[in-house]
């Protein structure tokens, strides 16, 4: 079988002048590389250390590295064809590591892979297969970038073309070595062609986005450790990302790891509706800032390279961070930029100020009197939590004050009573702080979190169930900075556990034309909490589920998150209208939601669509339909 494998031809001897020339060129190449890479590395290392960053336990990091870098899972899953082509190029590079080492060693007579030997022949053959795959892949990627021109890759990039050409040449010069007789001069020529291509490639790496070859494996390994993880502020002078001095090592490393693939931009709801925000430009803006001003500069970050307006158009939906194959974590960066503006008072937005003042003086984000909440509780005879019940039913601002939110709460209450699960609502509840946390107001967030934690401890609350994924996330994750929150879950998780009891009696179909139900994954339940199946189980009780084109982890935001529900009218198209149109286009007669914000956003969007728009129901309302009316 060995004889079936073609033999790679290699030059046997090299002249002294050839060796000298190689050393000189290699030196120049390494110098060219370091001249550009050195300063970049210093800028990353000179950045502030990340407070609260822990390298260990490293098991999760290693698993993430293997999955995302070695197996290229994210690269492939989110853009299958192009992703797989990239994966082939990457795997070829990995395989070629030894080939390249051997290639350079050969000129000094130190080659360790013998093309005639058993190991050598097998290895070179494997490398040849990868080289072939790589050649096809890189040609395909070239066609995609330069002929098809997908818009999220941005303007045509000559450097990408050059890199593609170099990779092609590397593979071609390697493969050609199998077809040339061992004694010919062509073998030497091929060796030099390959070597020169390598030496040309090396210095180009730090000058282009191909820096990701070196940096993105580190970005992935050194991630913050959890999705959309907002770092704590450290010390009295830390107000978020105000100037270069606030950029941390993780942020700087990630800024330089961006491959400019544009997946973040493709999935951004703000970008899709004509707003200024472009998550790719935010990251590249930080890179530009670092290149011009460096990590010790007092120049404001929101200025030349990033705009305040863009930063405040983010709904924190997380689609950008979730998609990123290079390990960039956009959400903490955007929230960091907002913190820098809000904590220093530089953000002067009429609606934003109104929201902050409402929460400074009052208890809820809508600026309504607590009498309204008290009356709602009284009118519906909701039991007050007194430590004897199993659950504290957290109403949240929407559940207590918003008409739709209240309907969802009452549906859940009916179900809980039917299930004979004991619960109570808090006599006094303050906003969980989600909108101010995402907008970057740490003063207000701390006050709200501490006040709520104290109240929960006082009433000895052990378990919370809430209708709002924003409350759930904020209570479980964000409050941790200030204390230990009780266990909290979303009502979809609670209902799914009791689903057998909810099937009996069966939930009737919701009406003629309403047999098909499309579930909209809320950002804060799906991407943020990884809960996709439980709400679907509930929705499926009353009909046949259909999926929206962008669903589950690719779900398209309703537009309310990031505090945006409390800010003024948005520029461009309304995110909620775009999503409502997508949901309606599935042909479903019912849109099922699991978040009071999504519910409110779609209520307006569907009303704007007029008659014939699908009906909007929360999963709690769907489940409650099955209960007898006397309950």
């Amino acid at each position, binding site marked *: 079988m060995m004889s079936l494998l073609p033999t790679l031809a290699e030059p046997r001897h090299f002249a002294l002048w050839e060796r000298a020339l190689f050393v000189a060129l290699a030196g120049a190449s390494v110098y060219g590389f370091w001249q550009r890479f050195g300063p970049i590395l210093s800028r990353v290392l000179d950045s502030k250390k990340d407070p609260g960053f822990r390298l260990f336990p490293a098991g999760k990091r290693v698993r993430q590295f293997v999955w995302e870098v070695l197996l290229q899972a994210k690269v492939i899953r989110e853009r299958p064809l192009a992703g797989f082509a990239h994966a082939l190029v990457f795997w070829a590079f990995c395989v070629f590591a030894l080939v390249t080492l051997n290639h350079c060693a050969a000129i000094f007579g130190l080659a360790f892979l013998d093309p005639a030997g058993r190991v050598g022949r097998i290895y070179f053959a494997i490398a040849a297969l990868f080289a072939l795959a790589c050649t096809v892949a890189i040609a395909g990627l070239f066609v995609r970038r330069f002929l098809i021109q997908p818009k999220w890759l941005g303007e045509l990039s000559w450097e990408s073309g050059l890199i593609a050409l170099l990779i092609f040449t590397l593979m071609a010069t390697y493969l050609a070595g199998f077809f040339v007789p061992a004694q010919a001069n062509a073998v030497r020529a091929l060796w030099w062609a390959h070597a020169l291509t390598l030496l040309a490639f090396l210095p180009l790496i730090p000058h282009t986005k191909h820096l990701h070859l070196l940096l993105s494996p580190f970005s992935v390994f050194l991630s913050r450790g959890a999705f959309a993880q907002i770092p704590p*502020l450290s010390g*009295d*002078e830390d*107000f978020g990302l105000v100037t270069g001095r606030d950029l941390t090592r993780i942020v700087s490393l990630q800024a330089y790891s961006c491959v400019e693939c544009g997946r973040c931009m493709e999935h951004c709801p703000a970008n899709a509706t004509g707003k200024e925000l472009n998550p790719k430009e935010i990251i590249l803006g930080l890179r530009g800032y670092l290149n011009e001003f460096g990590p010790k500069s007092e120049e404001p970050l929101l200025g030349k390279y990033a705009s305040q307006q863009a930063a405040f158009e983010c709904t924190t939906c997380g689609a950008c961070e979730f998609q990123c194959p290079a390990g960039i974590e956009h959400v903490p960066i955007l929230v960091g930029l907002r913190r820098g503006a*809000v*904590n*220093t*008072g530089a953000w002067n937005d*009429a609606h*934003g*100020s109104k929201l*902050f*003042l409402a929460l*400074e*003086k*009052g*208890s809820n984000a809508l600026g309504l*009197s*607590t*009498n309204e909440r008290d009356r709602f509780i009284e009118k519906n005879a909701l039991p007050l939590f007194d430590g004897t019940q199993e659950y504290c039913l957290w109403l949240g601002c929407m559940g207590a004050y918003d008409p739709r939110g209240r309907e969802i709460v009452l549906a859940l209450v009916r179900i809980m009573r039917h299930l004979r699960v004991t619960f109570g609502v808090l006599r006094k509840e303050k906003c969980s702080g989600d909108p101010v946390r995402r907008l970057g*107001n*740490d*003063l*207000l967030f701390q006050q709200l979190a501490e006040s709520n934690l104290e109240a929960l401890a006082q009433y000895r609350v052990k378990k919370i169930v809430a209708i709002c994924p924003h409350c759930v996330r904020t209570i479980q994750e964000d409050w941790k900075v200030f204390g230990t929150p009780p266990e909290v879950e979303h009502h979809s998780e609670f209902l799914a556990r009791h689903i057998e009891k909810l099937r009996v009696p069966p939930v009737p179909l919701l009406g003629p034309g309403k047999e098909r139900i499309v579930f909209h994954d809320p950002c804060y339940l799906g991407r943020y909490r990884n809960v996709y199946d439980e709400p679907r189980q509930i929705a499926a009780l009353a009909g046949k589920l259909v999926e929206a084109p962008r669903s589950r982890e690719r779900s398209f935001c309703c537009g309310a998150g990031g505090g945006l529900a409390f800010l003024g009218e948005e520029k461009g198209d309304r995110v909620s209208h775009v999503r409502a149109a997508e949901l309606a286009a599935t042909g479903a007669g019912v849109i099922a939601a699991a978040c009071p914000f999504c519910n409110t956003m779609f209520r307006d969007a569907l009303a704007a669509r007029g008659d014939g728009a699908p009906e909007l129901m929360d999963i709690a309302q769907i489940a409650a339909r099955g209960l007898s009316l006397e309950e």
Partner: protein
Amino acid sequence: MKIIVAIKQVPSRDAQVRIAPSGNWIDETDLEWAMNEPDAHALEEALQLKEKHDGEVVVVSAGPERVAATIREALAKGADGAIHILCDDLGARDALGVAKLLAAAIQPEDPDLVLTGLQSEDLGLGQTGVILAELLGLPHATLILHVEKIETGIKVKRELEEGWFQSIEMPLPALVTMQSGGNKLRYSTLMGIKRAKTKDLRTVTAVELGVDAAPVVTLEQISAPKKQKSTQILTGSPKEAATALVEKLKTEARVL
């Protein structure tokens, strides 16, 4: 320009106010407190003047320990210093008594401009600022929405009725009582709170100020307002009814 702002801490808008057993004051247990809103606008106006023309803003407030929280809020929003007149019996003093306390604390500061709120949200007498001006010997103007610095002193915009305004020029030093709504309030920031820790907050007692407390007006009784319902049916075409409604919401209900 040295500006003094007199602020009062009042029960928060949302508070469930109960009448004390004595019948002549409210039950203060479990109440949440906030800065009187017209005073917040006075503070905002002072801060904006300081930002435009350089100077210093000092807040003065009379009341028990709990008032310190509102004073710190004022410092966090940008005031440079504060004087806390510690007194536990604010409810037993009348407007003259309170004005005397404030005047005693403010006089030595020798300010260019004193701003107070038009009235407080709890008692709503609307007198303290005016009496204070008299005690300090300063010209005063009331119901002011906006203060502008001019060469000869200040020019103020005064709110009249039926949507009319009046413009008045005044020399400095002067006292102005501010109406709510003339400017946009700023929110408290983390940076403000951190900086507030290092600002000058002085506490004095009524005794130290040497002010006698015997009120000339005694508050005899407080009672809850009687709830009344009144329904108006607006007639006419939808457009006419809507126009009439907007007019009423603006001028009668005053919510727009």
